[in-house]
């Protein structure tokens, strides 16, 4: 969609009514419009100041920070273990992936090997979380654009997985199930059965979501050719995840820097062509199928074994031992009051969350607390490209663009 062409056609005089040429010149000026911070489609508290020419966006300036809680400052005050629950509150719809990214970063700092079963468990739960994230995204994006049915269908299936999380770790959203060196508890046979049932149930449901949208003229009209970004620009802006892959760059850390059990699974990374909202939608839906495939393979390959690394100076003892065994209790107390002694150094570790590359940059000077912890939040970085991607589109497309980033303000503002 070319901005200039659109403008000339809008103001063309209708040849069938030449009298319109004699109309007095209308006063034209740019209009400033505040969108948010309480607009329902801004996915939280985000304000964007829109400069408009008619209904077209000339410039948009995101105003962020309404949900800034100083998580990076808080990290410097607590031990490494104590920061895990804080990561839940970053991207609060996909807490598991934040835990995962953080634990991986700390393990890289400590040079800690995670046992194989724990790696499989981590991958399974991360992919379940990716399904939840994409379902949430699909429902929110469709709702923003005006397709309400998909919202209910997605939430119906999301509920099954949230209940599964509830049974796994006692919480639906703020899970804190990952631990430094492993995971908190193993999957029970009931949970594995339930997950297998879901894997059989789910793929036909993905087809169902697609039926609602892919033949829907309104959906196609509002996503095809909207918010186009070229591969070169997307890379320069540092976009990641489906937003970058929609432009045809197959950057996926699961393939580029394989971690956990991903190298042992076969899956493909869907890549778009046009870099528009529709391609980004298509990628996420395809990723749902890929996630199902990954979970299936992990469940098949997984062998029995320990779920926590054998490093008592770093990892937490199992809860049942804490209440029955004196040494375990002392260890638990020491780890939470003083923390473990991390080696001095500096690392960056990026993980492919469902929104994009979620990274943690940790500077340690030794001791139990991080000296500096910086979170590379994909939502924040995607907002940097908002003005570029919104230029020339209509006000209503602004909602589409928030949606296509899959933005969550808890992560954006931190």
């Amino acid at each position: 969609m070319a901005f200039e062409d659109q403008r000339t056609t809008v103001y063309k005089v209708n040849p069938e009514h030449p009298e319109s040429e004699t109309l007095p010149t209308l006063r034209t000026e740019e209009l400033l419009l505040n969108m948010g911070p309480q607009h329902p489609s801004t996915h939280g508290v985000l304000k964007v100041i829109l400069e408009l020419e008619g209904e077209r966006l000339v410039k948009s300036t995101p105003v962020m920070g309404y949900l800034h809680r100083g998580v990076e400052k808080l990290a410097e005050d607590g031990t490494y273990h104590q920061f895990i629950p804080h990561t839940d509150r970053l991207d609060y719809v996909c807490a598991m992936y934040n835990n995962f990214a953080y634990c991986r970063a700390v393990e890289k700092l400590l040079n800690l090997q995670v046992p194989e079963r724990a790696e499989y468990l981590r991958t399974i739960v991360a992919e379940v979380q990716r399904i939840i994230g994409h379902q949430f995204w699909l429902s929110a994006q469709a709702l923003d654009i005006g397709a309400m049915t998909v919202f209910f269908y997605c939430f119906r299936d999301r509920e099954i997985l949230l209940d599964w999380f509830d049974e796994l770790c006692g919480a639906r959203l703020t899970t804190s199930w990952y631990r430094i060196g492993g995971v908190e508890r193993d999957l029970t046979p009931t949970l594995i059965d339930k997950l297998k049932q879901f894997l059989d149930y789910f793929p036909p449901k993905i087809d169902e979501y697609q039926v609602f949208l892919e033949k829907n003229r309104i959906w196609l009209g509002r996503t095809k050719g909207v918010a186009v970004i070229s591969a070169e620009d997307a890379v320069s802006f540092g976009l990641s995840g489906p937003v970058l892959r929609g432009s045809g760059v197959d950057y996926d850390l699961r393939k580029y820097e394989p971690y956990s059990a991903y190298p042992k699974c076969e899956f493909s990374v869907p890549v778009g062509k046009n870099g528009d909202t529709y391609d980004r939608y298509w990628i996420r839906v395809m990723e749902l199928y890929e996630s199902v495939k990954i979970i299936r393979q992990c469940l098949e390959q997984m062998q029995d074994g320990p779920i926590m690394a054998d490093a008592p100076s770093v990892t937490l003892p199992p809860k049942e031992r804490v209440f029955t065994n004196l040494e375990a209790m002392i260890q638990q107390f020491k780890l939470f009051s003083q923390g473990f002694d991390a080696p001095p150094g500096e690392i960056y570790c990026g993980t492919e969350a469902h929104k994009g590359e979620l990274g943690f940059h940790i500077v340690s000077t030794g001791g139990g607390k991080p000296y500096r912890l910086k979170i590379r939040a994909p939502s924040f970085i995607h907002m940097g490209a908002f003005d570029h991607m919104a230029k020339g589109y209509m006000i209503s497309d602004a909602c589409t663009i928030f949606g296509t980033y899959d933005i969550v303000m808890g992560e954006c503002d931190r």
Partner: protein
Amino acid sequence: MHPLLLRVQHTFSAGVTNVSDWRGDVSVTVTRDKLREVAQFLRDDPGMDFDYIVHVSSVDWPDDEERFEVVWEFYSIRKRQRIRLKTRVPEADCVVDSLTDLWRGADFMEREVYDMMGIRFRNHPDLRRILMPDDYTEGYPLRKDFPLRGKGWRDTFDFLDEVPR
């Protein structure tokens, strides 16, 4: 030493003050005046090809002569390699060149560093606070001398009395 580091050190012998390769992370520290040149080299040299900006961060070392450290992390999508570029900034002259014209994504990331640590970026197109309010006067929250509970600004907020039922 890592071949990337050798290459950078060979090209900018005087500008490179420190290199490190720890836990597989390659990192190079350069002097402030050479920063732009090195960044340009990292992006445009065919052997480097760092086209993707990962993040910009900053670290406060209050006891050091050059107090602040600005950290850029780059990735090369074609070559699948990572590098960390660092430079030191003294508190008295807290300015460093902006890399916004090389990587467009640096815009918001550098604004965040300015907001949180108070490091100014020369030639940045729109250097304003990004997460804290525009009229925030307590300073820069991620500096080590900033107390965790803030400096009392929040205590001055007006609270509405509870409505009697």
